[in-house]
């Protein structure tokens, strides 16, 4: 999104000043260390959480929900997108329903999911899947819409079976756009999983975060936030990678 920049020593100024200022301010008592903690304490907390296994456990739980939800959302979004993309009349008729459902933030379903599925993995997966399925649905729908009608005519002339039509014509034409939708969905998956955990689900990194806050462990709380930013960057990197492999294959 942003123009590539050569790394410059100037880039280090801001983080170094922030970290130093933070450390000094909390040590001298300008900032309350019970609220702001300290960079050194945060590093220690990360190391501690990594050592006792709680960090790994929480990370596994969050990633489990994010990945399973993403996969389910992908399958559902693609299926719905292809179905409504090929049946134009049905898509128009269903538009108020899909628009309405799409407008409800997935997170708002947390209480309902809790009511239906109770605490645990499945309610979190359901919400992540709901959030992830919409960008993929929209991408698939527009992709299918933009298939050259002549290609579909050829398929009819050749009397292709629906499976063959899907494999030889629809899938290749749709692939590139769906990947774009998938990238958005990847970005959603982690955020939604963590948010559900913060809000209610007693598992994963989000829950660990809220517990750290409530048990007055700001060092652990900031440590988890740093860890989440790193995980977020990894997810972002994965979705970029997806883009490169796509380009590589098409080139």
């Amino acid at each position, binding site marked *: 999104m942003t123009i590539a920049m050569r790394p410059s020593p100037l880039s280090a100024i801001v983080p170094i000043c922030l970290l130093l200022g933070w450390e000094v301010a909390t040590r001298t008592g300008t900032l309350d260390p019970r609220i702001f903690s300290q960079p050194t304490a945060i590093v220690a907390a990360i190391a501690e959480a990594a050592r006792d296994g709680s960090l790994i456990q929480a990370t596994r739980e969050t990633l489990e929900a994010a990945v399973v939800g993403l996969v389910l959302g992908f399958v559902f979004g693609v299926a719905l997108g292809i179905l409504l993309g090929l049946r134009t009349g049905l898509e128009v*008729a269903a*538009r108020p329903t899909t628009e309405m459902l799409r407008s409800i933030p997935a997170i*708002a379903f947390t*209480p309902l999911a809790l009511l*239906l599925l109770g605490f645990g993995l499945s309610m979190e997966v359901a919400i992540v899947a709901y959030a992830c399925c919409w960008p993929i649905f929209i991408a698939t729908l527009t992709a299918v819409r933009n298939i050259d009608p002549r290609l579909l005519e050829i398929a009819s002339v050749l009397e292709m079976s629906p499976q063959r039509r899907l494999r030889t014509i629809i899938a290749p034409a749709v692939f590139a756009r769906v990947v774009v939708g998938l990238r958005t969905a990847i970005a959603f998956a982690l955020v939604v999983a963590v948010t559900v955990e*913060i809000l209610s689900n007693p598992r994963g990194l989000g829950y660990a975060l809220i517990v750290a806050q409530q048990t007055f462990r700001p060092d652990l709380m900031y440590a*988890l936030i740093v860890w989440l930013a790193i995980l977020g*960057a990894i997810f972002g990197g994965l979705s970029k990678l997806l883009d490169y492999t796509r380009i590589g294959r098409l080139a």
Partner: protein
Amino acid sequence: MRVAMMLVFTALMLALWHLAVRFELVNRTFVADPADAIAVIIRQIGSGALFESILATIARMASGWLLASLLGILIGAGIGSSRLAQQVFMPTLEALRPLPASAVIPVAILLLGLNDTMSIVVIAFGSLWPALLATIHGFQSVPRQLREVGTMLEMSRLRYFFTISLPSALVDIIPGLRIGLALSLILTVVTEMQASLRGVGYDIFMAQRLYRSADLYAGLIVIGMIGFFINQLLLISERRLLPWTTRRVH
């Protein structure tokens, strides 16, 4: 014709849902009859409770979003039009960007407590990113020719900003603001639930606590409506604000 198809399909879906509940295909305590949900909405309209909730939610969301948009455009314009500022700040911003917005909720609660200020700060923090990054991108990508037109006409910095770089960046800024608004609705709901602040998100949360499924579905319908209308509103204003992007012949 299109409208008739939409109406028929929507009615059909509602009827199926209604019948499924009626004939006990699903558990009534979990899945409410759509008729009951609509009855709840009508009752709440009558009592004025719905209006109050919607107003509270929208006010919170709009404050956070406006704050974020204003800050995002100001800071983004500064960073986007200076190469030096980009070198100094961009790597830090890039490192902070992947942080899930909701992860700052515990920090905000610790600093500010469970109140409206906390909610607005969280909403503003979350919707700041799309506005900020879109603005930086917009200012970075002012076409070279347009920059040179400004140079050839010996424009002052201020005139250049208002006649060339800001309008050119708008094409990126406005979609960024739209994404920010979608995020701000999400964070509004989350903070309302987390901090028990009056609003539609809280209504949904309470409905679940009290096992009143009709109220819960009613709340979801209302949130969906808010999301839908706000997005439509922004799409329309986008077309209004950027008329040259839609009136295209070639």
